[in-house]
């Protein structure tokens, strides 16, 4: 038996007399075989080969997010806290700015076979539009239904969000009203089917007939 064959057979778990005799008598194999033999038994511990499920890091991060570091807070975390605070301030500042700024457009919606009044104001943003819809005297959507706000350019309809009753709601959409001039509201069944199934309750003047 050749050295390579004997070593390979041994590493496969072959403990036949032919293999063990070769490893015991061949000087070259004895030199390299003994350390490998003792180490191979360590590798046979199957627990060593078990693999953790994916997503462990994400779970650890969630734990870290809820934990307080021991001792003085590491500087990098201080920086992270400052960065988070800066982002929050930027968002608050942006909202304050867009709210304080006069809307780029606003108008009253026309009720279509529905009680109540609705008005909408919009601000053009870099990514689309922010809108504030104010609805009064509209009955709350009945169980299993919700009101949905749409922007349309004719054949294309973009959902801008939903609401369940009178009040004021902030809406963000990724298009400009200059491209999607019609703003309207429908009463949609909460059936999990996207798209327009329900009756129109408010519409932009000129599109309501």
């Amino acid at each position, binding site marked *: 038996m050749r050295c*390579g064959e004997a*070593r*390979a057979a041994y*590493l*496969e*778990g072959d403990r036949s007399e032919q293999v063990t005799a070769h490893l015991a008598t061949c000087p070259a194999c004895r030199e*390299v075989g003994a*350390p*490998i033999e*003792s*180490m*191979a038994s*360590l*590798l*046979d*511990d*199957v*627990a*060593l*080969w*078990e*693999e*953790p*499920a994916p997503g*462990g*890091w994400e*779970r*650890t*991060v969630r*734990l*870290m997010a809820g*934990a*307080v*570091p*021991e*001792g*003085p*807070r*590491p*500087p*990098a*975390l201080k920086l*992270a806290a400052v960065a988070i605070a800066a982002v929050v301030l930027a968002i608050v500042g942006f909202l304050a700015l867009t709210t304080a700024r006069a809307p780029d457009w606003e108008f009253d919606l026309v009720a279509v076979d529905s009680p109540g009044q609705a008005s909408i104001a919009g601000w053009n943003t870099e990514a689309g539009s922010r809108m504030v819809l104010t609805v009064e005297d509209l009955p709350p959507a009945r169980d299993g239904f919700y009101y949905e706000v749409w922007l349309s350019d004719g054949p294309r309809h973009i959902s801008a969000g939903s609401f369940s009753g009178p009040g004021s709601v902030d809406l963000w959409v990724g298009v400009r009203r200059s491209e999607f001039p019609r703003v309207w509201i429908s009463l949609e069944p909460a059936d999990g089917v996207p798209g327009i199934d329900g009756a129109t309750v408010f519409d932009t003047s000129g599109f309501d007939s």
Partner: protein
Amino acid sequence: MRDGALLRRFRSGDPDAVRVLYERFERPVFAVAFRALGSRALAEEAVQQTFLQAWRASDRFDPARDPAPWLYAIARRVAVDLYRRERRHKASDLDAQPEMAALPTSFEGMWEAWQVRLAVEGLPTEEFEIVRCTHFLGLTHAETADRLDIPVGTVKSRSFRAHQRLAEALAHVREVTA
């Protein structure tokens, strides 16, 4: 692993550095915890707790030192705590002080297991796969060749090289366990 810049960032609590250490040591921590606790769920909890505690104590870590023994010490302590917590939950009224009970034999040899898993992690991927097929899946070289779609001669030569490499890396462990 002694990456000075990385370890200094870890000491300062840099979450990216924690992530790098997590990626390098997740499997060894999981393996020894699984071996000791005998439960995947507890072993995964042990991994998360180990890195949480390492992060919380990172300002006390010496970046001039190898993080492996430090992480191992944390992992072992976490595994012991989890074992005692589980024992407390299962303890009957007759077990007055379950936390005083001796650890089971599965906790013996944790350090050796840690060393072996670290050494295995250090193998090139193609050698790691072959060693795993042999020792975990119990495949012959021919079956390994089929599974990995490579010639059986390649399996044999890689297997020998991998075992030689591991024998060198684990010489100190073999001396202790011999």
